[in-house]
Each structure stands twice: as C-alpha cells, then as structure tokens.
C-alpha cells in the first residue's frame, strides 16, 4: 500500500502539523516558543526524575513519551517494527550527552530553534546557522568514510524496552507518583517546568506527531544533511512547512513577538547560541538523526537511538549539575568550556571512526 506520508506532500503535511500542534500547545500552557522541544523536555524529565535539581525545569513531559509510543504503535501496525542495535553503543551515548550540552547552551533542540524563529526570537538565527555548520562538518566526515558500524537484528523484546520505559513514565505522571511529598517525581512550582498543557492533550499531541514523523521520516538534521550530501530537498520541505505553519499560528494566537531582547527562555549571547548548536548539529550528524528522529527510531525498535536519547537525558543532568546550561540570564559558568570539550570529543570520533570510501 502506498505510504502517502512518504511523498513530498506527506512530509510537508507532517511539518505543518508539527508546527500547528507545537504552537497550539503553547497556547494551552506549554512554555513560550517551546510547544515541543525534545532537548528542553528531556531536560525537564531529567529534573523530574531527580537527575538534576534545577527547580524551575522539572516536569515529566508526556509529549516525549507520546512521540515514542506513537512511533512504536504505527511501526507495529505497519510492520516496520525492527528491533536492532549494536552499533558503537557507548559512542552514541556520549554523542547524546554532548548533543544535550550543546543544545542547552543554545536553549533548544532544532525543533525549538525553528519554533523560536517562528515566534520572532531572532536569537534563534545564530543557533540555526550553528546547527547547519555542525551538520556540514558531520557531512564532511561522512564523505571521508565516517561511520559507527552497522546495526544488527535483535530479539523482539530488545525493542520493547524503551517504549515500555516511556509508558511507565506516563503512568507515573498520570498517577502523580511521588516517593515523598517533595518527590521524586519532582514538579516545578514556578518557571518553565510549571508551564504545561493538560496531560491528556500533551500525550495525544505527542502520539499524533510520533505517528506522522514515523511514517514520513521527518528529521531536521537529515534535511540539512540531504541538501549537502545529495542535493535532496525532500525533508527540507517539511522543515520549511513547520516554520511557515508555526509562524501563521503564532501570528493568529498573538504569540509572534519579534526581536532579540527579552525573548522567552533565551539569551542574547550570539556566539554561544551559535557554538552550542555547532556542537549539537555535529553530534546529531555523527549519530544519524536529530533528537526528534532519535525518539521516533527508538519507537521503531532501534536501541542505538534509544541509547542516544538516554545519553541526552543524562547529559541534561550533567548540564545543570555542572553549571553548563544557559538561562535567560546568560551562558552557564562552564558552558563554553563544555562546548569546547564536546567539539574535541566529536572531532576525535569523526576522525577515528572511519572506513575506506575511495
């Protein structure tokens, strides 16, 4: 049967729907310009689990679980559920850690960078430029033989573990599970972590996006990589659709506020907005997908992608505990040093994990 969502119009539809849903989630309670942000939401989840103690960013975001479960369910139905793994696991974990460190210096994943731009936050431009440069560096490594080795088929149960973990987290938040009165789970009482759309709407939104993204293979990193490597604009058309639909609905909802200063959950240190996303983009390219795509692949049974996600969650804990993450006040004390270390790590991986290509 023809997969409509794999066509050009399908990817445009997917991007447009993600844009509309994200901006609508903001209207319904999610933080400004953060209707969906995989990095921010995984950071909030890390906080809710107690992996960091930044009190303003702790909430068990149901959208993340929804993305994984939506992908998992549709992959099962469409017979695309393929448990696989075994491709340089520990490297993928640390690529996830450093991807998160870079994203939290900028304050957002590629999806949020696009949403920030669509909402008039021009600080996102430096981040998007950095993202493109980071991916271009990654593509240069790909052209020179970089790869993390092939993955192998695994037993069915290997692919169930991550979706089951996500389902457990949703159940915990639905039951308002707490070990003691103060947590865990921790829930912010003020700040971005306290701002969220109603639980059921967040879950449904995540599942819808998970289904669409699985069927269309929507990927922001892939969109830039495909343009550079194969002059293919298929995925890019979805990304552009996301920006346009988010802009239109931000405008309709009165959420479009152009400028550099005073933007929500953002800072104006352009160099570090840029450099943070160079690191994140490079890590995404070396790992083979943006954070959203990694969640979708995790749902399909790709345990290598799931390990990358776990790296991002642990990376969020490290970012806040070691004062690497930025805040609206500016870049974290050790953020620049961590970006430098991350870039060195990625360059070493890029240069050493190579095979013949000519």
């Amino acid at each position, binding site marked *: 049967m023809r997969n409509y969502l*794999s066509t050009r119009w399908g990817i445009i539809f997917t991007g447009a729907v993600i844009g509309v849903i994200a901006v609508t989630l903001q209207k319904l309670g999610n933080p400004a310009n953060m209707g969906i942000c995989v990095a921010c939401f995984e950071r909030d989840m890390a906080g809710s689990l107690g992996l960091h103690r930044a009190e303003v960013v702790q909430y068990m975001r149901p959208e993340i679980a929804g993305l994984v479960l939506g992908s998992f369910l549709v992959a099962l139905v469409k017979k695309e559920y*393929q448990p696989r793994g075994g491709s340089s696991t520990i490297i993928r974990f640390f690529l996830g850690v450093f991807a998160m460190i870079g994203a939290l210096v900028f304050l957002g994943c590629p999806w949020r960078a696009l949403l920030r731009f669509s909402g008039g936050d021009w600080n996102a431009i430096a981040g998007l430029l950095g993202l493109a440069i980071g991916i271009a560096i990654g593509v240069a490594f790909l052209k020179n033989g970089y790869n993390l080795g092939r993955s192998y088929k695994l037993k069915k149960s290997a692919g169930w573990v991550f979706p089951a973990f996500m389902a457990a987290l949703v159940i915990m938040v639905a039951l308002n599970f707490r070990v003691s009165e103060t947590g865990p789970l921790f829930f912010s009482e003020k700040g971005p972590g306290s701002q969220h759309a109603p639980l059921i709407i967040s879950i449904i939104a995540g599942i819808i996006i998970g289904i669409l993204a699985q069927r269309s293979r929507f990927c922001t990193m892939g969109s830039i990589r495909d343009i550079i490597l*194969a002059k293919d604009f298929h995925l890019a058309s979805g990304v552009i659709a996301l920006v346009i639909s988010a802009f239109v609905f931000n405008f309709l909802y009165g959420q479009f506020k152009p400028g550099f200063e005073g933007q929500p959950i953002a800072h104006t240190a352009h160099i570090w907005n840029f450099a943070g996303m160079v690191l994140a983009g490079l890590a995404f390219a070396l790992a083979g997908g943006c954070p959203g*795509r990694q969640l979708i*692949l995790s749902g399909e049974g790709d345990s290598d992608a799931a390990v990358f996600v776990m790296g991002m969650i642990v990376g969020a804990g490290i970012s806040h505990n070691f004062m690497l993450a930025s805040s609206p006040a500016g870049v974290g004390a050790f953020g620049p040093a961590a970006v430098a270390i991350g870039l060195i790590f990625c360059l070493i991986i890029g240069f050493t994990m190579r095979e013949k290509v*000519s």
Partner: protein
Amino acid sequence: MNSATNMYSVVLFHSTNYAIWASNILKRNSVEHKMIPVPRHLSSDCGYCVRFLSKDRDIVYDLLMNNGVLFDKIEEI
C-alpha cells in the same frame, strides 16, 4: 513498460560510507547513477542508497563486488 531501459534500481547499504564509496566507483567508471535517500517504502532508515538504470545492473554488481564494496541488496524501484 516491460523494457528495463528506463527503469531504476537501487543498491542498499548498511552504512552511508559504503554508499559514498559505491558512488565514487560508479563515477570513475562513468556509470550513470545518483546517490539518494533510501526510498521510504524500502526501509525506515535515514540512510542513503545509490540509484542507477536497471539495464546497468550487471555492471554495477560486478563493479561493487570487484572493489569489495559491501552492500545489503539490489532492488528495482
């Protein structure tokens, strides 16, 4: 449409560098081809494949085998 003259086939690989390697070899041997993202109906991976005219299947197969380029499979699209 029973002629293979204008039909395309793709070579699928386990990793991107093999697709790039294959493309380099086909380019050197003047075999018409294009590196493209794997068609969605063939695989759910983000990866790349090499598309070529189906009539060149034997030439492509021999070039890849003779140069030791590991590939998953060749499929008509």
